[in-house]
């Protein structure tokens, strides 16, 4: 149908426009922050740069979740774990960069190890003084965990609610593990007090602007990549697995492989988001593994519209913006507002903001098309039956129901 074609075109355009906007923001915000004096009305204050930079990494996390949840039907309630792992890998690099500027002045051991009376650097901290090594670990740690976890879970055909629960258990287990001091990741306090990143002072406005730009560009790039993935034949398979897993299996595909791949890619994206998050907020602690964090990511994605790529980005920015504003005026009620928001979205906007917008546009377009065809029919002389010479009544062709016309995949239950 024509509307479907238009829709696909529209969704590609939306991805491109969003990526371009992000690229423009990546340039514009740092310039407005650094080049203009604070007195100028166009000056972007430092706290805004830090805040929005943080939200952009959240948006990247929501985008990662959308790939597995929106397209592959895997409702992960543990994506915060991959985010935190990427964050810890970055945090370990930043810790090693402190060198002898720590409170205890030990050139090798981070402060918390000196405090715990450790004599040597644990083996898993080796290499983190090099950025390239940390960069590999940012990708490898969440990716490997997701691969191994997914390999076992999907091979055993764990799906739906059960899978959601074990992802939640995964992040909870990591939370407990990272709280322990003997794990060697700073225990309760986590990693903080960072000084330099790549030789630049983490606190300097230029570095902050650079991290902001990196977050925006990473998000734009991730958006283009996920868009390419979802439009490929593999992307169609992800949706096929989401909608009819057994059918996919009986035409010879292995749904477990399709899921493991999506889950791993998504975890890597989440890890990169975490790595960009940590230098901007200046701390990583086990609290990032809290199950509630992962559930919040699901809320952002649902609010924006799952299975739309751009939706989760908008959802993450809006909900977090709302959170900052709301906690400023009524701090005690934020959790109620978040819960209420999720209920309201589920009830009134089941497809999220972007999904609802698309349905509305599609139904308007269909109405316009119907009106136009009708006008043309009225204008043209009625067809004449050659046998009788009388006008023939033309049956209106039945139209498909609008949910199908809206083009986008209809929201599916979590299983």
């Amino acid at each position, binding site marked *: *149908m024509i509307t*479907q074609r238009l829709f696909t075109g529209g969704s590609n355009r939306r991805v491109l426009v969003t990526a371009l906007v992000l690229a423009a923001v990546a340039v514009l915000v740092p310039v407005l922050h650094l080049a203009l004096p604070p007195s100028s009305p166009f000056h972007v204050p430092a706290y805004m740069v830090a805040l929005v930079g943080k939200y952009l990494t959240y948006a990247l996390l929501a985008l990662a979740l959308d790939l597995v949840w929106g397209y592959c039907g895997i409702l992960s309630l543990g994506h915060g774990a991959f985010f935190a792992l990427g964050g810890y890998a970055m945090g370990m690099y930043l810790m090693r960069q402190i060198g002898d500027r720590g409170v205890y002045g030990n050139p090798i051991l981070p402060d918390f190890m000196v405090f715990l009376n450790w004599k040597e650097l644990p083996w898993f901290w080796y290499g983190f003084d090099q950025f390239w090594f940390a960069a590999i670990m940012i990708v490898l740690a969440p990716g490997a965990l997701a691969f191994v976890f997914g390999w076992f879970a999907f091979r055993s055909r764990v799906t739906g609610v059960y899978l959601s629960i074990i992802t939640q258990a995964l992040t909870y287990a990591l939370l407990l593990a990272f709280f322990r001091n003997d794990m060697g990741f700073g225990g309760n306090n986590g990693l903080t007090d960072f000084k330099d990143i790549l030789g630049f002072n983490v606190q300097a406005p230029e570095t902050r602007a650079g991290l902001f730009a990196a977050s925006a560009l990473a998000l734009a790039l991730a958006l283009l990549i996920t868009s390419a993935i979802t439009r490929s034949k593999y992307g*169609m398979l992800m949706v*096929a697995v989401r909608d009819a897993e057994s059918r996919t299996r009986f035409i010879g595909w292995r749904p477990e492989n399709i899921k493991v791949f999506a889950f791993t890619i998504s975890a890597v994206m989440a890890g990169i988001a975490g790595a960009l998050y940590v230098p901007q907020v200046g701390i990583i602690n086990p609290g990032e593994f809290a199950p509630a964090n992962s559930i919040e990511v699901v809320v952002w994605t649902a609010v924006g519209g799952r299975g739309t790529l751009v939706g989760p980005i908008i959802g993450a920015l809006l909900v977090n913006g709302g959170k900052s504003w709301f906690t400023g005026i009524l701090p005690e009620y934020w959790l109620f507002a978040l819960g209420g928001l999720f209920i309201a979205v589920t009830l009134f906007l089941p497809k999220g903001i972007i999904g609802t917008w698309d349905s509305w546009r599609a139904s308007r377009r269909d109405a316009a098309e119907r009106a136009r065809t009708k006008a043309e029919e009225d204008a043209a002389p009625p067809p004449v039956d050659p046998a009788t010479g009388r006008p023939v009544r033309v049956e209106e062709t039945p139209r498909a129901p609008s949910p199908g016309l809206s083009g986008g995949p209809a929201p599916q239950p979590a299983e």
Partner: protein
Amino acid sequence: MSKSGTILYLDGVSVSFDGFRAINNLSLVLDRGEMRAIIGPNGAGKTTMMDIITGKTRPDAGEVYFDGTIDLTKHDEADIAMMGIGRKFQKPTVFESHTVEDNLVLALAGPRSIFPALFHRRSKAESEHIDEILATIRLEARRNDLAANLSHGQKQWLEIGMLLAQDPKLLLVDEPVAGMTDAETEETARLLKDIAKTHSVVVVEHDMHFVRELGVKVTCLHEGAVLSEGTLDHVSADDRVIEVYLGR
């Protein structure tokens, strides 16, 4: 019995679920190129038999061979599908958020791993093959429609088309005309007879008119075993079959 020359060979197959014997010492042989209709009352084990052949269920005992040499009990669903057994489910199952054409693209024979799928570009040969299948299942006009918008009968045809796209040697078709209009039923019989010219086919069906229309050898299952086998007239004249269908 010799396995050579058979496309499907089941001998002494049994399976039970929680003490209930769904399939009980079942033996069934299908020659290459043969079309066979399987009938039987509810709970006769028809769908379970298909589950065993396609690797969804492992039999407790017995031999299941495909193409004379392949032991199907040693393979899983995806493997078996790739070896050339296509299965249509009782409830039409297609990818509803994809277009008719894309449904066929996903089913087309070819590599089944991730990276080729990521960088897949459709070749001319593939497009032609899809056109052929669309013509066979008479859905050319709806190629760009979402599968969700098809009628029940059209979904059944699309699913059969997806089986064809897999290029299987043997098709297992479970209740293809359930819920179809008479015209659609007739059309489906024509379609299956067409397919049977080049494939081996097993059709499970309740609808006796439809089975008569197919005009092939019939096997009647009851309580997980073969009750009677032969032409439809022979089978429907069998006292035991009448007893099973009309109650004792």
